[in-house]
C-alpha cells in the first residue's frame, strides 16, 4: 500500500482536532502516515506529539506560514512532504492548498471526500444532491470533509522532526481586518441556527442571535432571506450558492427548505426544523420537527436551552 501524508489543519493558532479525522482517513487510504504541521514556530507541533495513527511527525517551520499564501505554502509543504497520497481538510483554505499541491506534483486532486472504500472515494456533487464515486490510480491529493470521519485518539507518542521549509510569497497581506461581530462564521461552527424569510424581518434575527449566544452557535440564513434583506449579508448564506455546512446541529427557523438550501445543509448530523407549515419540505430532512410559528417556539427553545446549559 502507498504511503500517506497528512497536512495538519490549523485553526486559531492550534492544530485543529480535524487533523485527527484526516489521519483516520489517511490510514484507510494507505500506510505509514506522515503528519506535516505547517508552523512559524515548532512549539505549535508539540501539542500533536501524542496523536496516534502516525509513523512520523514533521514540523515544517517557515515564516511563509505567517499568513495564507497559496503559492508559498504549496512550495514549502511540497519541499518537506514525502511522496504518497496527500490528505488535507476540505476547509475553504485547505481545498485551495490541496489543489495547488496536486498541480505542483502533477497529480489530480479529489475534493471534499465523505467516504473511502479501497481506492474508491465518494464526494458530494451538486452540493450533495448526488454523490460521485471515483476510482484513484496512483498518488493523488485528497481533501476530507470535516466532521465525517471519526478522529484518531490522542494516546500515541511520536517524535517530532523540525524541518526548515522555504517558500516564496507571491502575494502581500496589507491588512488583517477582524470581523466586527465576535460570533462564529457558519463555516467554522459546530452548531448553526439559521433563519429564512419566515422570520418576517431582519430585526427578528436578534432572537436567533440570542439562542446562538447560549449555544456558542453561528447564525446563518437562507438565500431567500439574503436576497430579500440587505441587512443579512451573503456571508451568512447557507446553500448551494452560499456555504455548504455540516455541523453537529443545524436549527432551521422559518425556512421552508428550497432545494438550493437543502443542498447546503442536509449532511448536518442533526437537523431541527421550526416552521408553521406542516408540509414544508424541510421537515423531510429534520430529525426533530416543530410545527409552530417561530414567535411561539423560539422563546420556549431559548429558555429550555438556557436552563439546560447554565
Amino acid at each position, binding site marked *: 500500500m502507498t504511503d500517506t501524508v497528512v497536512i495538519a489543519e490549523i485553526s486559531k493558532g492550534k492544530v485543529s482536532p480535524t487533523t485527527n479525522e484526516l489521519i483516520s482517513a489517511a490510514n484507510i487510504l494507505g500506510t505509514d502516515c506522515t503528519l506535516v504541521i505547517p508552523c512559524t514556530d515548532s512549539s505549535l507541533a508539540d501539542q500533536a506529539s501524542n496523536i496516534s495513527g502516525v509513523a512520523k511527525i514533521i514540523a515544517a517551520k517557515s515564516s511563509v506560514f505567517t499568513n495564507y499564501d497559496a503559492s508559498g505554502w504549496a512550495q514549502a509543504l511540497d519541499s518537506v512532504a514525502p511522496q504518497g497520497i496527500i490528505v488535507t481538510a476540505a476547509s475553504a483554505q485547505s481545498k485551495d492548498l490541496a489543489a495547488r499541491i496536486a498541480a505542483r506534483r502533477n497529480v489530480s486532486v479529489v475534493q471534499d471526500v465523505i467516504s473511502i472504500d479501497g481506492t474508491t472515494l465518494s464526494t458530494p456533487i451538486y452540493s450533495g444532491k448526488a454523490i460521485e464515486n471515483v476510482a484513484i490510480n496512483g498518488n493523488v491529493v485528497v481533501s476530507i470533509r470535516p466532521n465525517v470521519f471519526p478522529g484518531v485518539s490522542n494516546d500515541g507518542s511520536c517524535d517530532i522532526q523540525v524541518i526548515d521549509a522555504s517558500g516564496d510569497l507571491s502575494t502581500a497581506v496589507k491588512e488583517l481586518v477582524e470581523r466586527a461581530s465576535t460570533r462564529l462564521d457558519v463555516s467554522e461552527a459546530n452548531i448553526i441556527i439559521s433563519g429564512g424569510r419566515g422570520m418576517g424581518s431582519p430585526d427578528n434575527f436578534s432572537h436567533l442571535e440570542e439562542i446562538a449566544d447560549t449555544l456558542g452557535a453561528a447564525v446563518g440564513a437562507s438565500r431567500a432571506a439574503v436576497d430579500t434583506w440587505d441587512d443579512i449579508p451573503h456571508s451568512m448564506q447557507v446553500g448551494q450558492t452560499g456555504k455548504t455546512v455540516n455541523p*453537529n446541529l443545524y436549527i432551521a427557523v422559518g425556512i421552508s427548505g428550497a432545494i438550493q438550501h437543502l443542498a447546503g445543509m442536509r449532511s448536518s448530523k442533526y437537523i431541527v426544523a421550526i416552521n408553521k407549515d406542516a408540509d414544508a419540505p424541510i421537515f423531510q430532512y429534520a430529525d426533530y420537527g416543530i410545527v409552530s410559528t417561530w414567535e411561539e417556539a423560539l422563546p420556549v427553545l431559548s429558555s429550555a436551552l438556557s436552563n439546560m446549559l447554565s
Partner: protein
Amino acid sequence: MVKIAVLVKQVPDTNSKIQISNDRVDLSSVKMVMSPYDEFAVENALLHREAVGGTVTAITVGGNSADKVLKDAKAIGVDEIVRLDCTEYMDSNAFQTVISGVISQDGYEVVYCGKSSADTGSGSTGPGVAEKLGWASVSNVTDIQFTDGMTVTVPTEGGNAIINVSAPLVVSCDKGSIKVRKPNVKGIMMAKRAQVDVKSLNPNPSNVTVVSQTMPAEKPAGKKFEGGQSAETVVQLLREEANII
C-alpha cells in the same frame, strides 16, 4: 492594457432537481446556466478591463451546447469567446494542464474564475491552473480594488485579509458585494452574431475516473411535534437521544 481570461462553465440551474439514470446524473431535462460564481468572475474581469484597459476573453470547455454560456458572457460585454472542444471526462490534472496550456500559449496575464462550480463544488481549477503556470493565486475573493495596483479581500478565520496582488495572477471569485450586470438588447444581438473560436484538444489520460454517480442515502424519518411548547421536548431529545448539547 491587460489581457484577461475568464473561465466559465455551464451547470444545471441550482434550483433544479438532480436525477440519476444508469449510474450517471441525467441532465437531459435540466435547464443549463452559467455557474453562479462564474457570473462574479465575468463581472470582475469586466471591471478590471474598465479600470485599466485591455481585453476580456471568456473560455469554456465542452461540446456545441456549451456555446450558450459563452454567448451569455458575450452579451454582457466580453470581447472574445473561446471553446475548448472536448466532451470527455478529464480529471483535475488533465483539465488544468489543458487550461494552463491555452492561457500560456495565448499570452493572458490575469485569469478570473468562480471560486467553485455549482456541479462539482471542488474549487480546484483556479489554484491548480495558477500552480501549473507558476503564478500567484487568490481564492474566495469577495472584493477587488483597482486603485494603486490591485488589492483583493479574502475571508480568513475571524475576519478578512486585504491582500496586494499583481499579475500574472489567477483570481477565484466569491459573491461579495458587486452586482452582476444584465445584458441589454444590443448586447444580446451582438452575442447572437458573435463567432465562437473553437479549439480542438488532445487531453492527457486521467488517473482519476468516475465509477458511478448515485443519490445520497435517504435519512430515516425524524420525529415531528405540534406547537411551540414542544421545543422543550426537542431540547431534551438533543441531550438524551442525540447527545449533542
